[in-house]
């Protein structure tokens, strides 16, 4: 049973909930996607997007366009909307909105560290960072030689500091350690976000628990599939799974020992919410798994808008926009490579 959110939510959150619902109405529709899928080149895509909310961000881009330019400009729009909402938000909504960006922060940290390991220029790496995951001292990540230094010199003053307790070692940073660091940080972040939402209670807790559990389960499946045939041991694989979600703990025990995609399928089909996802794929193939997971995620995110007076609409909107940007990236790549017949392999319609 919820409390009386309807009485008090609008005092602090009413304006921003109205804003985010307005933004949600600006998401691309099926007819927009149909028009985009029929474009002959990237300039056609730019022309079609000029009639949408992305128009002002793309209008000044010179031809010839590149797919990365389209993705960057569309991401800038999302960043502007997010910053507007963040500067208007009060506690605890402001903390909730910051939590949404910690995943990008982790990706940026790993990008800088990996690029530095490969002797790349820091400025070049900073250009590739996601704008939602930027923080002040990010450029100084390049001086760290191991995780202890990474934490002590840079990350101790960032929101990611509490997530480092499980991966502080003096081992030098190499490809495997960086990968384990990435997944360990993300696991700690998801668990922390989950606990925060539980404390908020009400509809936020209920809806966000479902969305974050799905995220944790999807990560567990992806980690399992991506680690098959690698040097990651079963124990290390098990340690990367989050300690919540529908698959926790018995599903994780079974996933940890999977050696191929069919064994993963066997584990997941025991859980009814995931039976429909794996039913779309034939045996032995995993190409459509990403799309199936995205479709399920979009369904759950859209359902978040069916209720009022909770914070999950902000999370859902950000994720739906990111999905939209992924769709635009895929359509642009198919058009640029003259492979329009494959455009529906990965586009997930939101409405």
């Amino acid at each position: 049973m919820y409390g009386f959110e309807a009485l008090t939510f609008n005092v602090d959150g009413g304006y921003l909930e109205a804003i985010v619902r307005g933004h949600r109405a600006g998401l691309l529709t099926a007819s927009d996607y149909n028009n985009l899928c029929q474009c002959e080149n990237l300039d056609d895509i730019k022309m079609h997007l000029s009639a949408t909310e992305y128009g002002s961000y793309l209008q000044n881009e010179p031809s010839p366009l590149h797919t990365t330019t389209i993705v960057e400009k569309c991401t800038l729009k999302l960043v502007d909307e997010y910053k507007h909402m963040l500067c208007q938000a009060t506690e605890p909504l402001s903390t909730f909105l910051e939590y949404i960006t910690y995943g990008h922060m982790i990706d940026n940290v790993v990008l800088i560290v990996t690029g530095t390991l490969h002797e790349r220029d820091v400025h070049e790496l900073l250009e590739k960072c996601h704008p939602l995951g930027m923080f002040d001292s990010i450029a100084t990540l390049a001086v760290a030689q191991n995780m202890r230094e990474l934490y002590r010199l840079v990350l101790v003053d960032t929101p990611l500091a509490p997530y480092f307790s499980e991966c502080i070692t003096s081992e030098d940073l190499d490809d495997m350690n960086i990968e384990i660091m990435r997944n360990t940080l993300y696991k700690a972040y998801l668990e922390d976000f989950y606990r925060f939402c539980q404390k908020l209670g009400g509809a936020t807790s209920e809806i966000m628990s479902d969305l974050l559990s799905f995220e944790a389960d999807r990560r567990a499946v992806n980690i399992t599939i991506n680690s098959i045939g690698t040097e990651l041991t079963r124990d290390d694989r098990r340690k990367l799974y989050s300690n919540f979600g529908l698959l926790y703990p018995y599903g994780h025990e079974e996933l940890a020992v999977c050696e191929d995609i069919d064994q993963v399928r066997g584990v997941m089909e025991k859980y009814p919410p995931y039976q429909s996802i794996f039913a779309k794929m034939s045996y032995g193939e995993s190409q459509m798994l990403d799309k199936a997971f995205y479709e399920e995620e979009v369904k759950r995110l859209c359902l978040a808008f069916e209720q009022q007076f909770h914070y999950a609409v902000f999370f859902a909107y950000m994720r739906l926009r990111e999905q939209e940007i992924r769709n635009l990236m895929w359509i642009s790549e198919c058009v640029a490579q003259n492979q329009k017949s494959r455009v529906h392999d990965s586009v997930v319609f939101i409405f």
Partner: protein
Amino acid sequence: MEEEEDQSLSFSEVVEEQQGQRGSEEENVVQFLDSLDSYLTLFDSLSSTLRQGWLELASARHSMGVSRINGTLLDLKPHSAATTLQVSEPDVDYMVGQPHFKLSKWASSNNENCCFGEEKIREDKLQTKSDSPQLRNRSQFSGTPATNGASLIVDDQVQKERSKSLSMFGTLVSPKLRSAQLSFETALETLVEIANMRSTMFSTSDQIRKEMAGPRDDNKRYCIAEEVCD
């Protein structure tokens, strides 16, 4: 009498030689046409393999995110080439004036059992390109257990080298990125086959031209033979 026998022998030798030459010419023409056909087929195959590879790479970026797969992650540290191309000198016994290209795949300075060469290329072709990760760890070849054991060792080493080259994007990468890697690997093999086929084509074309320039000598010999017979 002996002179007449000698003359008839030389005439028959000339006729046999001419028939042999015509047979050789036809063989060269057929070989040229075969190599041209193979060359064009390989080009088509290369084009479709590259298209597939680029789409799989885009699919991997879509799946893993643009921050995980981009040009800024490429390793600029000095390191040895994973794959090398060897050009062998033209061998008189094999084909006159024809260079031969050979790919040595997945050779690294850390791996003492390097230079898998063409034999490995053939073995890799038998390995089905599939998203099923189980195929990475199981042998594809039927045969004696001893053969299978050796194939497994080579297969594991190749997989390790493949994973090492992908490690710049992380150690837990999507199967789509591995598929893209296989596609580009196949495209590289096809390129070497195209180079060899092109070399064969030019070589047979040169031979045909030489043979077409050669019939005057044959006619002269035939006339001499006729004079002898007369």
